[in-house]
């Protein structure tokens, strides 16, 4: 190295000692040594972490494999057996597929409606909670931590927990699923909404306050128009997730296409053409909703810039 360098201030204590003895200037060899040592240490830590992670993955895989009814290496050769069987049967009864589509359309609509209604209801709850949990906007500033924790808890509840309890009380059907998903959605969207609310311009709110608007008027006319595009984009994302959730909840008894799928599956061989029709309907719905919501969200974020 052509010239000595000054040591950066944030380096460790023992280097400072070298610093003093050399009168503020460090010999190049020492810098090189220190750098290489640091590099080695970094690599060592990285290596140890990597080994630890790999061991964790391998150990976890082994454990899961041992606890599973069928082993991984046994099953992997049979992965395509079931899809092949279903598709084979469906291919044999191709002419019946359109009729099945028509049969299961109402169930599909119910699933989509569960997702739509729960997104809407959840978003309305999230709107209120998030406003109550944002500094500068909250109606009761002291209760901000309370509403934040409330949203944390709501977010943590898996939909299936509420759905199963409600099915026991209310009986099967779309309403338990809707309430369960709306509950979780309120928590999840509430957190995202309150992040959006933090960046709100307070001038319209102050203006409304100066003309005597009460809290709900200030929020509705001062805040909501500013945050609406962001909210909408998050709601669409949530709608995609909720369609999947409502299909899964149907499988545990909450109505919709998931319930039909469970029935079609339980009829077993010879009836798989119905299962195939439901698979296709569900797949198509998810893809269409994902794509449509992606397009709308892109457009929303494009207008956002201006």
């Amino acid at each position, binding site marked *: 190295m052509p010239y000595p360098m000054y040591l950066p201030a944030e380096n460790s204590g023992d280097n400072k000692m070298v610093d003093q003895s050399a009168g503020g200037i460090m010999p190049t060899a020492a810098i090189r040594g220190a750098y290489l040592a640091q590099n080695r240490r970094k690599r060592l830590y990285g290596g140890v972490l990597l080994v630890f992670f790999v061991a964790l993955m391998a150990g976890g895989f082994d454990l899961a494999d041992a606890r*599973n009814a069928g082993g991984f290496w046994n099953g992997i050769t049979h992965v395509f057996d079931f899809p092949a069987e279903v598709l084979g049967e469906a291919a044999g009864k191709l002419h019946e597929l359109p009729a099945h589509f028509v049969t299961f359309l109402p169930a599909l609509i119910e699933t989509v409606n569960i997702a739509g209604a729960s997104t809407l209801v959840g978003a309305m709850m999230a709107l209120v909670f998030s406003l109550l949990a944002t500094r500068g906007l909250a109606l009761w500033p002291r209760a901000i931590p309370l509403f934040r924790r409330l949203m944390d808890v709501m977010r943590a509840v898996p939909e299936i927990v509420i759905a199963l309890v409600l099915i026991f009380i209310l*009986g099967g059907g779309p309403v338990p699923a809707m309430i369960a998903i709306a509950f979780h959605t309120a928590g999840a969207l509430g957190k995202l909404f309150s992040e959006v609310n933090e960046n709100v311009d307070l001038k319209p709110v102050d203006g409304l306050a100066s003309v005597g608007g009460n809290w709900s008027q200030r929020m509705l006319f001062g805040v909501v128009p500013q945050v609406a595009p962001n909210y909408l984009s998050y709601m669409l994302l949530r709608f995609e997730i909720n369609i999947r959730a409502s299909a899964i909840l149907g499988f545990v008894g909450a109505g919709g296409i998931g319930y039909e799928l469970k029935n079609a599956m339980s009829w077993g061989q010879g009836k798989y053409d119905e299962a195939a029709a439901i698979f296709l309907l569900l797949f198509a719905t*998810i893809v269409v909703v994902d794509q449509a919501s992606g397009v709308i969200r892109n457009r929303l974020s494009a207008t956002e810039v201006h």
Partner: protein
Amino acid sequence: MTALTMDHRIAASARMQKKRLFAFGIPALIFVYLAYIFISFDVAGLYHRADIDNARTLVADSYSYKTHVARDNRSGEVSVAIEGERKGTYPEGSSPDWVTLGDETVVDLGAGHIVTYAGTQVSYDIPGYGLVTADPGRNGVQAEFPAGELPEWINASKNRVTITTEAGRLTITRNRTEVLRYFTGWELFFFTLDSPFHGKGLGEMIGLAFSSDRVVEGKSNIAAMVDQFLNNKMWQHASVFWAIFETILMAFLGTFGAAIISLPLAFMAAKNFTPLRSVRFGFRRVFDFLRGVDGLIWTIILSRAFGPGPLTGALAILLTDTGSFGKMFSEALENVDKKQIEGVASTGAKPLQRYRFGVIPQLTPVLLSQVLYYLESNTRSATIIGAITGGGIGLLLTQAMVTQKDWEEVSYYIILILLMVMMMDWLSGILRRKLIKGDGGGH
């Protein structure tokens, strides 16, 4: 000029009109949709379909339990059992302090309510009402009540009498007399009746833990306590904790497995790394397919091949998330800063080295924080998938629900699930914050 202002005015009022339409139209649309939902989900009919009794048992059971004191009227045998279960039966000749066994069995329900079994006779002294006696046998229950009309909390027929008071419930039939007393709390949560540690207070337990007297031969007291607690027959803590672990394992294996698989695939779907359009298109469709088929269908397909268990759940999460991660990672790759790659390339690095030192360091914080975010949400998914494929806490929860009586266990599982998800949320939050902070210093 006036024409110009007129134009502006027309344009402005048209815009106002449009805005007004929006401002009123959207809430109206939402209202109409919700009204449609209200009708199509038959929310109004819910009131009739709802089973309030179920709700009542569920709520009452989740925070209280009952102890049964039953007598077989033919053999005269008296047994005391918590929740009426064999696992909670008091050993022969022992009883809680509110039951006095002997020739005459006296059950003190508290607040002056006393039930006495003497010979075949039963008497229940109800404060503010009087003494009810019965002599159940071949001729029916033969109950005698104080004079006057029977109150509605007594249900009496020839062969069956049920008295429900705020202190408990007495049921007399020809063959069996049973009194229930309700208690708040979860029964035998720590130790069952046959454990030597049952009924010991916290102070006593701490004393025992440090004492050298062996409660169980050949085992230190702490080990014995842990063993007795984990193998509690009523609650089976060991298998519950194992199920929680299994659920987290599913989420962990699925999430990180998906991340490892999707990283190399994402390069094939990114514009700046794969110039061939058809290859890119192919990989993107693969990701869309994996995501579109969705966890539910993957779970069903995989459980056919692998059977029920945590591995099936982990693989279902892995497949779905490979699609999600592949899409997100390839988008992140397209936004990578080219300068670093060029810098690495200028030192003569081969493609693989260019990726390793030019691309990966830029991406690590972004990708890892996304992966960690998914880890938390997958813990919730693993609960649901476990309920379908049969593994982890999801399975225990559905099993406990199906029996429709162990609601205290259901609430225990729900609390554990909540704690598990919140812990994962907290953990992933800490790691993500660390990564974002470390990101600033790393470059």
